[in-house]
């Protein structure tokens, strides 16, 4: 009797556990993807019809249809990568927000870096030149000016002084 009670209690507990688990797993398998799930993928795609508008923000019929496809594929259990590959196969690389890293597309990634690095090198060299040139300039200023270099200046001052003298007399 005691054994029977124990067994029925065990069965009851198992049944409760099973009921608790089943709806969860059923929901996980057949659950409809949310708008957020769809948009998480849609924002990485661009429809060629509406250039420069990501799919999650585009309101045209074509984009609505595309989002419908993403929803259907997610419901079927497709992964994000599989869905993106499907879109590339159907509509080409240009649907991707980030061009795939291959072939000519590498330019998109490399050129800005090269320009940035080149600019850095030019700046560095420029600063270095300034550093080396500056002391020479200072030394020129400090060193006694030669009589030859002052000659035009002296002439100019003499002329100004003469002019002033004339005016004060007049």
């Amino acid at each position: 009797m005691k054994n029977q009670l124990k067994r029925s209690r065990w069965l009851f507990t198992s049944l409760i556990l099973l009921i608790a688990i089943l709806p969860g797993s059923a929901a996980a398998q057949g659950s409809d993807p949310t708008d957020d799930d769809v948009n998480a993928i849609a924002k990485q795609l661009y429809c060629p019809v509406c250039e420069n508008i990501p799919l999650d923000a585009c309101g045209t019929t074509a984009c609505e249809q595309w989002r419908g496809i993403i929803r259907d594929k997610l419901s079927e259990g497709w992964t994000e990568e599989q869905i993106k590959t499907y879109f590339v196969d159907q509509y080409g690389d240009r649907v991707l927000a980030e061009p795939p890293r291959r072939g000519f597309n590498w330019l998109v990634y490399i050129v800005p870096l090269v320009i940035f690095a080149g600019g850095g090198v030019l700046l560095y060299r420029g600063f270095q030149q300034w550093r080396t040139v500056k002391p020479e300039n200072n030394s020129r200023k400090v060193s006694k000016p030669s009589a030859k270099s002052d000659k035009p200046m002296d002439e100019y001052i003499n002329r100004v002084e003469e002019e002033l003298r004339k005016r004060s007399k007049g």
Partner: protein
Amino acid sequence: MKKLLTWVGLFGGLVLLLLVLGVGLRRSQQGQVGIGEMAPDFELVTFSGETYRLSDYQGSVVLVNFWASWCDACKPEARDLEAAHKYYQPRGDVLFLGVDYVDTEPEALAYLEEFQITYPNGPDLRTKISQAFRIRGVPETFVIDQEGIITHVQIGPFSSLEDIKSTIDPLLDL
């Protein structure tokens, strides 16, 4: 010498970059392939799985129509195109091909059923055909003569069956 090489390298890089940008810009600003030009060859796999290669139809007049189910402007000409296809079908030397641009298959098939279109239609996979013809939108239609030369470019829909026939009849000496 080292300094000169650096400058030559920088200048070369800049010229290369400008060249790439220029080519890209030129391509993006080019219009459709025009009248008198050789039509780009392409392969269309229809929704029912048949393959059509344009170059296989030298000797025939080929009408290539770009459309999409989401395109409202494509709808008015859909029935006229089907009527024109039926009109020329008995001759056997005029081929109509529908290229479905940036579309989804269920909606495209529903469109074909709605307008009872029977001539070959297929998706423009990876938008290769539309890029080759450099279309700017849909509908756009290209009429190609027996030598593969484009003789008519229709931007926007045809207005009537007669409008379509007026682009094909002269090629058939009608």
